[in-house]
Each structure stands twice: as structure tokens, then as C-alpha cells.
């Protein structure tokens, strides 16, 4: 199984160049859109659909730039069974002239076919005046796109770390101002630039800055903490005085922590003009536009058409309001949850909000969906503006018999048994109504588990069981106790009976039998002398004593059978002595 998979993947990889050629596209990208004359820009031409880097791209619009090769690379990705091959050609370009330049398209020839990429616009500005002074090997520089802004207008705050030495473990603390909100735009960009007479590696971080109060704001210094590795100073000649050891691995000392601070900046924030302010001004500041569409434009009565409105813009996009569709006569409108997406780029915060409504006409005929509008303050023209959608028309056909059936037909699915079923379409969402039945009030209540009922139900059964258990135990114990008392008193009772005057043989024999029964927990109706002896011996009585008792019993038996049973008996005292002896021996 493993071999089969390995072979399959290998074959797939071999076949890839062939299959990948089927869908090849070229894309051109630059790492920044605004630079100075001293900065270099990274330009990448990506050819997706091939791994081959043989075809060199020809890039138009680079006349005013110095171009140097940055290398080529290729990669292969297999994601969820889908194979993506990409070849990348990297260039570093440095502008020679100020202005806005359109770079591209890049043209690549693959198997005789010429493929063109997109273009990119690069704005090149002058080198700042204060760059003449030398600033050392490591410094921080901040700038803002404009020193003046309207309330909630976004300003681009750019922070650049210039370094000519090795640094590591960078961390940035942006200034914290009460009425200025910072939002980082994308990932930091790294490139090479010149400053004064030196060449530096620059790390650029861009943030959108949004003021929320009118007045002059001082943007405090940004702080960047890092570990700095300075070139090692060697005092004398040694084994390591070789140019090889001046390289990146040996040329720097151990790092030391350093914190750099930028210069503070000032931003003047102006209030939005009162003049020409629309009454329905939404609070949006920037540039915004709206789009809308209705799908489908022809429906049956009871069917739904979806109106989609998209508000797109750049500025304080998080304030794009949720629009409300005006009341439409003879139709039901169900609003969907708006979807907001923010897409920050190096020019600032941009975003889109998509709002949808399901419109269900209740009557046939033409319907007009009015246009929607959003007023905003346009920061490019410094005036209020309005973005609007166009109005839409829906043609509603009557929902009668076969027509309605025919219109539904395409949406139907044929079931397993040939029956046609239509998927349930969600037209709107809302909460379910209140409970109005009086019966509801008798259910769904609770009482705290406490009080007599609680304790009766919890402890009652246990108490009943415990009482029954104790009763049974007591009953058993009392029976045992009775027997014990009887055992204890057996000898005493016998002695008492023996001392009676004129005790007959029958009476003494009966008393002896009762003694044996009581003393040894027996329930015998009659006892022979031999049985009596056996009982006594088995209970630990000495044989001689047992035989003595046996002989007395025999004598009593003889008297009874000889007809002298009712005559007074003379061996009473002897039997008492024997019983006393038995008691001693049994203990």
C-alpha cells in the first residue's frame, strides 16, 4: 500500500509539468507602492502553473529604474490533492526619478505562447531634506502622511528602522495617545536604502492613525527595543586575524539590549466643515462607493428576489452603517445579517460591507426598488459627497397553476422514487412568538428544594428503613436474651423444685427434663437416661457426673414404671448436688 502511494506521488510529480502547463498565469507584485529616490523596491514576477524558471520575464516600465537580479525560485505544493507549481523571479529596482510609474506588465514566453501579467503603480517621492546629516549605524525615523487631517480621517504613520549593524529580538511600542487610534497595516517590510552617505537595511512598519478629537495632537515617540550585535574590536594580531573571521558568524560580539526612540510629531486635527453637511451625514470620512444588484429580476408571486448592496471604501470603514430598506408596498422584506470585511493595505484601512434583503412580492406586476444612499466626507475633494445605488425594477408574474409549477421546476430535485421535492429556502429569520397559554404558567416553575416535603422525601425512606431494621434486630436480640436468662435460671429453678416437700418421682423427672431443655436450649418432649448422659457429655460435662445423672434418671424411670411415680422421692437432694456439679463443669 505504501509502495503504491509512493509510486503514485512520484508519477504525479513527473507528470506535473505537463498537466500544470494547462493553466499558467503570471502575476507581478511590488513590496511597496510609495518610496523615495534612495529606497530599493522588491519586485516579484510569479508564474503559477510551472516550476520551470527557464523563461525569463521581460518587464515593461522600468526605464527610470536601476534593476538588479534577486534570484529565482520554484516550489511545488500539494494541497488536498491539488498540485500547485510556482516559479518566482525576484528583482530589486531603485528609482532614478521622482513621479508615479506604472510598472509592468511582465511578459513571459512559455511554449511559444506569450503570457502577460498585471501592472503595479509606484509613486516615487523626493529624498527628505534632513537626510544630509549622518545618523550612525542604527536609528529610528517616523513620519506621517500629512500633518493636517480632518476628524476621523486616516493618516498613515510610517516607522522606519535604519540599521547598518546586526540586530535581533525587535519589539515595538507605538505611542499611546488618548484620541489617536493606531492600526498596523499589513506585515513589516524590509528593504535596502541609502541615508546620507551610508547604505542601510530598512525595516518599515506602517500604521493607520485615526484622530477622534479636534485640536493639535502631539504623537509621542515610538520605542523599539532590540538586541544589538556590534562589530568586535580586536586589539592585536591573533589566530583569528583572518578576513574569514570578519564574516557574519565571527565578526560580531555578544548582543546587548538597546532601546531606540523616535522624534515626536505633531498632527493638527480639523473639525469637519458645517457648510453643506447633509442632514443624513453618516459620519464616514474617506472615499466610499456603493454597488447594488437584484437577483433574479423576474419572479413569481410568493417567490423571493435578493437585493445585494455593497458599500466599499477607504477611511473609517468600521463606521459604515447598516442600511435600512424603505418600506415596500405589497411585499415582505427579510433583512440578512450584514457582512463586514476589513482589508488593510499599505495605503490605509479599506473595507466592504455587504447587506442583503430577501424581497417577497405578494402581488403581481412591476415593482420598483428605490435607490439607497450614504453621505460621507470625501477627504480628497474636502467636501461632502453621497454614494448611491441605482434603483431596480422587479417584474412579478402571477403565481397560477402551471406557470408557478413551471417556474419552480428548475429548483426541484427528483427524489429516489421519482417524486419531486423542493429544497426549503430560508427567506428570513426572527424570534419565535411569546407564550400566551395560561397553562404555561402552571408549568416551568420551581420551588427551592427545602421544607418538610423535601426532608420527608429525602430522609423519610431512610428513617423508615432504619426503624424496620432496628425493630428486627431488637426482636432477635430479645429472643436471644430470653434464652440466656432461661439458661442462667435453669439450675436455680431445678434446685427450687427439688427442695419442695413430698416431691414425687414423676415431678422430679419432669423437673430434670425441663432443666436439660432450659440449660442447653433444647426442645425435647421426652428424655431417656442414656440421651441425658449423651447430652451432658457432648456439652463438656465429665463422664462420671453424666453417669451419676444418668443413674438418678434411671431410678426415677423405674419408680414411674413400677407405679411409684406419685410417691415422694428421696433422691431430690442428690440430684441437686449432681446439677450443681454439672453447672460447675459446664462453665
Amino acid at each position: 500500500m505504501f509502495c503504491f502511494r509512493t509510486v503514485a506521488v512520484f508519477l504525479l510529480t513527473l507528470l506535473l509539468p505537463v498537466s500544470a502547463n494547462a493553466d499558467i498565469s503570471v502575476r507581478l507584485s511590488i513590496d511597496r507602492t510609495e518610496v523615495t529616490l534612495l529606497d530599493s523596491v522588491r519586485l516579484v514576477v510569479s508564474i503559477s502553473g510551472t516550476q520551470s524558471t527557464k523563461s525569463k520575464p521581460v518587464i515593461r516600465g522600468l526605464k527610470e529604474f536601476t534593476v538588479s537580479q534577486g534570484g529565482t525560485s520554484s516550489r511545488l505544493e500539494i494541497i488536498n490533492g491539488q498540485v500547485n507549481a510556482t516559479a518566482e523571479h525576484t528583482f530589486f529596482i531603485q528609482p532614478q526619478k521622482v513621479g508615479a510609474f506604472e510598472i509592468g506588465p511582465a511578459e513571459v514566453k512559455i511554449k511559444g505562447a506569450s503570457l502577460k501579467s498585471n501592472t503595479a503603480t509606484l509613486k516615487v517621492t523626493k529624498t527628505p531634506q534632513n537626510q544630509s546629516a549622518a545618523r550612525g549605524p542604527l536609528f529610528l525615523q517616523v513620519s506621517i502622511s500629512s500633518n493636517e487631517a480632518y476628524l476621523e480621517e486616516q493618516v498613515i504613520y510610517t516607522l522606519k528602522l535604519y540599521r547598518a549593524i546586526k540586530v535581533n529580538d525587535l519589539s515595538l511600542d507605538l505611542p499611546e495617545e488618548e484620541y489617536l487610534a493606531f492600526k498596523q497595516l499589513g506585515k513589516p517590510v524590509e528593504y535596502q536604502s541609502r541615508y546620507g552617505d551610508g547604505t542601510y537595511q530598512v525595516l518599515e512598519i506602517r500604521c493607520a492613525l485615526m484622530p477622534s478629537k479636534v485640536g493639535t495632537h502631539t504623537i509621542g515617540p515610538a520605542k523599539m527595543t532590540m538586541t544589538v550585535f556590534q562589530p568586535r574590536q580586536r586589539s592585536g594580531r591573533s589566530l583569528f586575524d583572518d578576513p574569514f573571521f570578519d564574516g557574519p558568524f565571527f565578526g560580531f560580539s555578544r548582543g546587548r539590549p538597546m532601546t531606540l526612540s523616535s522624534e515626536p510629531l505633531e498632527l493638527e486635527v480639523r473639525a469637519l466643515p458645517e457648510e453643506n453637511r447633509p442632514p443624513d451625514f453618516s459620519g464616514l470620512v474617506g472615499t466610499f462607493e456603493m454597488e447594488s444588484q437584484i437577483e433574479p429580476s423576474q419572479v413569481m408571486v410568493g417567490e423571493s428576489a435578493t437585493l445585494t448592496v455593497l458599500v466599499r471604501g477607504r477611511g473609517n470603514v468600521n463606521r459604515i452603517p447598516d442600511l435600512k430598506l424603505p418600506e415596500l408596498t405589497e411585499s415582505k422584506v427579510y433583512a440578512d445579517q450584514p457582512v463586514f470585511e476589513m482589508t488593510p493595505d499599505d495605503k490605509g484601512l479599506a473595507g466592504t460591507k455587504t447587506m442583503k434583503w430577501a424581497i417577497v412580492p405578494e402581488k403581481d406586476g412591476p415593482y420598483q426598488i428605490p435607490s439607497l444612499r450614504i453621505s460621507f466626507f470625501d477627504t480628497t475633494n474636502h467636501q461632502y459627497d453621497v454614494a448611491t445605488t441605482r434603483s431596480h425594477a422587479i417584474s412579478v408574474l402571477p403565481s397560477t397553476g402551471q406557470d408557478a409549477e413551471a417556474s419552480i421546476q428548475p429548483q426541484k430535485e427528483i427524489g429516489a422514487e421519482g417524486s419531486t421535492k423542493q429544497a426549503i429556502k430560508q427567506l428570513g429569520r426572527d424570534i419565535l412568538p411569546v407564550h400566551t397559554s395560561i397553562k404555561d404558567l402552571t408549568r416551568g416553575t420551581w420551588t427551592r428544594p427545602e421544607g418538610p416535603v423535601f426532608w420527608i422525601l429525602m430522609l423519610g425512606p431512610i428513617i423508615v428503613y432504619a426503624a424496620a431494621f432496628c425493630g428486627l434486630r431488637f426482636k432477635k436480640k430479645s429472643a436471644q436474651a430470653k434464652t440466656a436468662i432461661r439458661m442462667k435460671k435453669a439450675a436455680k429453678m431445678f434446685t427450687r423444685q427439688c427442695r419442695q416437700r413430698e416431691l414425687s418421682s414423676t415431678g422430679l423427672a419432669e423437673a430434670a427434663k425441663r432443666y436439660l431443655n432450659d440449660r442447653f436450649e433444647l426442645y425435647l418432649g421426652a428424655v431417656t437416661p442414656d440421651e441425658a448422659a449423651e447430652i451432658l457429655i457432648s456439652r463438656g460435662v465429665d463422664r462420671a457426673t453424666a453417669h451419676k445423672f444418668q443413674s438418678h434418671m434411671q431410678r426415677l424411670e423405674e419408680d414411674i414404671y413400677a407405679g411409684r411415680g406419685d410417691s415422694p422421692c428421696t433422691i431430690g437432694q442428690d440430684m441437686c448436688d449432681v446439677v450443681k456439679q454439672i453447672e460447675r463443669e459446664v462453665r
Partner: protein
Amino acid sequence: MRTFGFGVLCSLLGIALFGAGLSLATSEPLEEGFFKANQAYKEGRFQEACKEYEQLIKGGYKNGHLFYNLGNARFRLEELGRAILNYERARLFVPRDADLTFNLGYAREQTKDAVPESRSLVSLVFFWLESFSLNELFWGFAALNVLFWGTVLVRLFLRADWLYYTFMGLLAFWLIAGISFGLKWYQLETDDRAVILSEEVDVLAGPHSQDTVLFKLHAGTVVFQERTEDGWSLISLPEKKRGWLKSEVIETIMNSGHLGSL
């Protein structure tokens, strides 16, 4: 003896009639208020409906359906926080009500904060606890308690095989029901969940307005109130997010004013 039996019967009848009278006397304002509140809701006077439902609840009628209706009225007034608060309270009484489950789910979808659901090991093992109210668990356990001890009692006199197996089966159910009831009670006694009522609130690093804003929360988000201090509440969320906010912007689900001590 016969006179004694008659006396007991008369007393029981008297108690029953008195109870019924009391029940009629107390149910009248309830029904009237309930009807008025529902009528106000139906006619779109949601503020009035809220007032009526709240009056009934404050009057001592703790009922899941009343909390549900109040939640609906709050939702219509676009008070998402209070709507969710009342739905959560209703869930304590009628946890399996289909309408409530739907509306609470819908209201939760409207909230802005994505808070990951955190479930304790106990709630994972005793997964059924959420589906039963405390009352249901109590009566279930009470019935099993009587059956179990009854079986144990019978076993004192009758030692039969079938009785032994009945005893073992009941013992298992009795233990499960007892632990469930105890856990549910404990959960409710220690329930520190609270709902954010304001549209947006700043959660600060300390109980002072000047403290650093750590993050923001929005209406309807359920947080855990750890403690209160001078009108400030320390709240926590899953993923170790903690901070202080003004006590007035949240309300605990097990608020003693609304639900009694339990």
C-alpha cells in the same frame, strides 16, 4: 374511633378548600397581568409588556415562560443584553423548551463578541445536567430514593434473587440521580455568570476609570463575575481574559432579586 376519622376527613377537606381558595385568589392577578402583558406585546407596545412581565416576576411568579416572554419583549426593544439575560434565566426553568432554544440561539448569533465555549469536565461527563431543571432532577431523585429504600426494606423480609437484581439496578440509578441533583444544585448555588447589558463596555485593568483598557465587550456576551468592589466587578472569560468593569453594565443570571436565593 369513628368520630376521630370523621374529624380528620373534615380537616383535610377544609385544608384542601382553603388551598384551592388561596390558589384562586393568587392566580387571578397573575392571569390578568399575563394577559395584559401579552396583549401589549401583540400590539407592539414592548416597553409596556416588559413592565408587566417584570411586575409579575417581582410579584413572586418565578416562571420560565414569563422570563421567555420578557426576553422576547427585550429583544423587540433591541436590548440584546437583557434579552439574552432573560432567556438564560428561562433556561433554568424550562431547559428543553424548543422556542426558547431557538430564540436564545438566534439572540446569541446577534452578539458581536466571539467567546469560545468552555466546558468543565463535570459538565462533559454529566452532559444531561443542562437538559434538566433542578426541580426535575429533585423529583426524579426523590422517586428513586423512595423506590430504592423501599426495595432495601423489602429485602429485610424477603431474600429473593429478583429482589437482589432490582436492588442493584436501583442502586446505580439512585447514585446517578443523587449525584446529578447535588451537582445541579451546586452549579446553581455557585453560578456566577453575568450578561453584558450595555452596547459596548471597556474592560479595564483595574477598578478605576483611569486604568488601561484591556479589551471591549458588547451587549449579550456572557461573562463570569468573580467579585465586586466599590461598584466595580472583576469579570473573566475563557482564554484567561480578565478585567474590571462597572457593575451597572452587567447583571448576573442568578440575581437574587429576580430568582430568589436560588
